């Protein structure tokens, strides 16, 4: 509708009920690793798949990956498995265009069987190729949080 909307009731800010998720014991180890600029995953004792980030259960095998074993130290390098370039900010209240399109990648960390989703940095879009080698660009001051990884850069 072209005419300007008239706001009659605005529910914003009446209630605050924000979640305070605990990352859980497995992701705790993962984030502890990030703080030391290290990537860890864990291995299903049954099928041998290596999960990065780690999981408490392998869905395929319905098997628990016990917390005190199965850990695997992984390098901070990997292979670009997939990518997309988005012109929209996905966290915004409204779908809004961004100034510089974000390059978002699925990267399979070497030694793992899964891919993680993060940004691709300093890369002209026409140079991106599936299968190319990339590595983590670490944040200068790590805090054991998702933001410790700035993104991935070409090796």
């Amino acid at each position: 509708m072209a005419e300007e909307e008239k706001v009659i009731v605005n529910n914003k800010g009446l209630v605050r009920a924000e979640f305070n998720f605990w990352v859980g014991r497995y992701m705790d180890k993962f984030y502890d690793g990030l703080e030391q600029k290290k990537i860890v995953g864990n291995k299903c004792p049954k099928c041998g798949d290596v999960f990065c980030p780690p999981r408490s259960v392998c869905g395929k095998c319905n098997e628990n990956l016990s917390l005190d074993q199965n850990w695997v130290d992984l390098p901070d390098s990997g292979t670009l498995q997939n990518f997309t370039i988005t012109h929209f900010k996905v966290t915004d209240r409204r779908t809004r265009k961004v100034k510089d399109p974000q390059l978002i990648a699925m990267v399979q960390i070497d030694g793992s069987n899964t891919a993680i989703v993060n940004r691709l940095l300093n890369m002209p879009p026409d140079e991106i190729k599936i299968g190319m080698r990339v590595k983590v660009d670490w944040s200068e001051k790590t805090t054991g949080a998702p933001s410790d990884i700035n993104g991935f850069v070409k090796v």
Partner: protein
Amino acid sequence: MEKVGIVGFNQVKMYSDANYGRYEMIFEAVRGALDKSGLKKKDITTVISCTNDYYDGRTISNLFTVEVGGGYLADESKCEMDGAHAVLYGLMRILSGNHKLAVIWSGSMPSCYPYHSTRLYETDPTWERPLGYVNDITAGGFQMRAYMEKFGVSKEEIAKVAVKNRKNAAKNPLALAEAQNANITVEDVLNSEIYSDPVTELMVAQPCDSIAAILLAPERQALKITDNPVWITGVGYSQEAYYLGERDLSISKSMEIAGKTAFTTAGIKDPKNEIDVAELFEAYAHEELILAEALGLADKGKAANLNSEINGDLAINPSGGAIGGNPPCATGLIRIIEAAKQLRGEANGYQVKGAKKAIASGQIGMCAQNNILFTLEGSD
């Protein structure tokens, strides 16, 4: 499986910003379905709705739809997935032997909330959500690229699906006006705004406002209500891994399993030749190809070669599909309604000649994580 019939249905026209409220829209859909079938509130024995608390902006959101959805002092419950899953819930209530008429309704009004932002709430709050790189749009970009890379399918071939569905939507009076593009070309689709490369705006099934309702009854009851029931002959559904990084996005394993289950129940041995019309929930143009391949309607990577026009070898989404309008939670239910219309010969303007057997699918989650397939047959 015991015979359960679709004995009525109704759908509100899809709008990008409907000029009436949720309550009115739900009532129009449900009461309209009853009126068209000559039924009354007292005939309803169970009501199943499908909405999403996030999309409704309140918890246990079926509490506020009791009166308008026909659920007042009735056996009433809700399914928080796709409307097609609610039809499965309703089917199970009928198969329990305790019910004579199930009302199933679903839908949403995304003109009231930021749809793509709410999809971010599907992601893991302790890992992916704080980064904000995965929502339905970026996931669709990954899925399309995975499909193209794996099978060497071109953007043009995928854009053709959007062209077909938008042209079909132009023949469907209930489709979203913005998706009724009678003169659209492959170039228009490719040159439309990039959403998440390689996905462009016109390849997306745009969220819109609508509510749809369907009525189910056991065989004996169904034949009393109508001379022309549509029979549910089979159903299958399956769920894939949660994290995108654990899935092969170029195929749909869950739809493959859903299809096999439904076809086995329905006694369909050669889906490609036995099925006359398919209404598939494609959230993006490329998904129609991936889903058709998972169902065995084409070889892997070859669905673009299938003539799926209204009078082609196997009509897919003659109504315009989800690209013709995608009201969150209603889209899969609308696929079932559209397939039923085809089997009753009521798809005026986009009728597939002599349609006897149809399939209809619903989905939920990033990159169609969960798929459900119904097989339907018309009355002789």
